[in-house]
């Protein structure tokens, strides 16, 4: 088994902030817009360095998306920043028409996704944003797993022409991927090689998947662990070939099991190679207040849950 080392807990949103700061220096076309959440989104440094390229739009997310779409005309690359709920559900139609259908080069950067947002509770904890964004033709959907990967993804999406949804989170979590990685949009990352079960995880669940793989390993079970940071375009080959190898799949995401990564994987498999699959995800409920760890445990979004799902998936091999 490969060993992954937590080099010190950091929040993924700070990875975004670091990436944006770097882009500020390297790419003069990058502009940033924020809807009254500059600190939460870690956009302060970009703002301080490039006040003329930072646009405070106030609490008006719909307008922010329209402004961003318009700013692309004339060559700017707008990065919008607000919480994941207000980046997606609040402005779905605006993104749909003014950005996605209009092919605008806007990067929608969304923090505080999922239940790990914590104490603010359900109104802020969107568990549907992956599903929302993946349904939009032409949208690239990315959910990164740690600080380093989020920073790398932030740099990468500036180079990609077209609308992107970049999802990250609030709490400090293990930082374990390479500091100097290059981020390849749409390319799944194989983290562990295994034969008994495929674990396909995204975002905060990737670290949990690695922990689960260790536990399974102790029980003599080898798990194939895939970090599927890009939900769209989905790396179908990686999914199909791993499922062919192991014969069963667990998907893990900080998202409703309806509409998200899990269903996308189920579709890929149903179309290509029907395989027993278990879903580590929220079970069609709203979230609630609590600490990130409490909520991950209560809503079944941790290594424990992945281990249980893996055992169940393995037991279903052959009998559907």
């Amino acid at each position: 088994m490969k060993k992954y080392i937590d080099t010190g807990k950091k929040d993924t949103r700070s990875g975004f902030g670091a990436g944006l700061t770097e882009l500020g220096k390297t790419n003069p076309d990058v502009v940033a817009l924020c809807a009254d959440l500059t600190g939460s989104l870690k956009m302060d440094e970009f703002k301080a360095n490039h006040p003329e390229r930072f646009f405070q739009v106030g609490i008006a997310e719909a307008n922010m998306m329209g402004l961003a779409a318009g700013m692309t005309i004339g060559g700017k690359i707008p990065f919008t920043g607000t919480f994941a709920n207000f980046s997606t559900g609040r402005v779905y139609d605006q993104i749909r028409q003014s950005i996605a259908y209009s092919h605008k080069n806007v990067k929608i950067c969304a923090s505080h996704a999922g239940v790990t947002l914590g104490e603010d509770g359900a109104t802020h904890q969107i568990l549907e944003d992956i599903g929302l964004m993946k349904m939009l033709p032409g949208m690239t959907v990315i959910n990164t797993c740690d600080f380093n990967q989020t920073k790398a993804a932030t740099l990468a999406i500036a180079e990609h022409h077209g609308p992107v949804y970049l999802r990250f989170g609030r709490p400090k979590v293990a930082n374990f991927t390479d500091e100097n990685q290059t981020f390849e949009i749409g390319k799944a990352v194989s983290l562990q090689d295994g034969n008994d079960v495929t674990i396909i995880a995204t975002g905060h669940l990737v670290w949990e998947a690695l922990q689960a793989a260790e536990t399974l390993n102790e029980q003599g079970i080898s798990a194939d662990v895939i970090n599927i940071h890009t939900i769209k375009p989905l790396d179908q080959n990686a999914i199909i070939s791993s499922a062919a190898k192991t014969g069963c799949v667990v998907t893990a995401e900080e998202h409703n099991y309806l509409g998200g990564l899990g269903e996308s994987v189920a579709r890929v498999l149903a179309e290509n190679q029907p395989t027993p699959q278990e879903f580590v995800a929220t079970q069609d409920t709203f979230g609630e207040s609590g600490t990130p760890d409490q909520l991950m445990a209560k809503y079944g979004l941790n290594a424990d849950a992945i281990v249980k799902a893996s055992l169940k998936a393995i037991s279903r091999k052959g009998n559907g």
Partner: protein
Amino acid sequence: MLPFLLCAPLGKCYFWQHIKYTSMPDMNYLNDLVVQVRRDILRQVHKVNSGHPGGSLGCTEFFVALFQEIMDRKEGFHMDGKDEDLFFLSNGHISPVFYSVLARSGYFPVEELNTFRLINSRLQGHPTTHEGLPGVRVASGSLGQGISVAVGAALTKKLNNDPHVVYALCGDGELQEGQNWEAIMYAAANKVDNIVVTVDYNGQQIDGSLDNVLPLGNLKGKFEAFGWDVLEIKEGNQLDAVIDGLNQAKGSTGKGKPVCVLMHTVMGNGVDFMMHTHAWHGKAPNDEQLEIGLAQNPVTLGDY
């Protein structure tokens, strides 16, 4: 009005104000309540190291006035809200003051404030009906939705021939959300005159003062241009001024126009180091800061 003398133990006291006992407010009691609510706010957010003290403190007098003096409320909580005044909190992040005043007005045990923002609590970070907390009729937290809901409730009151008034509170920063202006336009055009929307006009939002973030300019002019009757409460942290202002607003209902109250408040009011800044919009005091804040607001009615 001496309700708290009549009931024990503290925190189990249910005081329903459907029938007013006296026509004159008991200002001593109400002022004590204001101080106690400030303590409740500080203690709630301190315990979980999260939540929004700034806006809560600035609206303490408003909530005390509204629930203790202004609203005609039935005993117990009835989601349907028939034959009583209703209140909707649009700027849901100031839940600490809402919860404190709800509890101290009898909707649920005051001890429950201990569970604020904890897992499995009814006192969610932002108020919701989802956990069945008495006193809450709609979820809020995602800004900009409350005026629409309040106007809807006011329409139903009219359909039901229920002469009671619907109150709502929203933030000033919140008014940057366009949905508010849809609701504001609708209410005036349809003469929804059984509603009083108060704006917590504290001049602050998360990233700074409104003037630095996105100024509202002439807000009174905006509401008037949208066809509302606009009153101002210049001293939104003076209990008597708030009571007077809200009474005047109540008196302005039924005249063909929705009523807006621009209530000038100080964010963080009552705790000196929290005042006149956006810094405490969504930050909890540490142990030491809590002590200072509580010392500035000594116990009156008893902590939970």
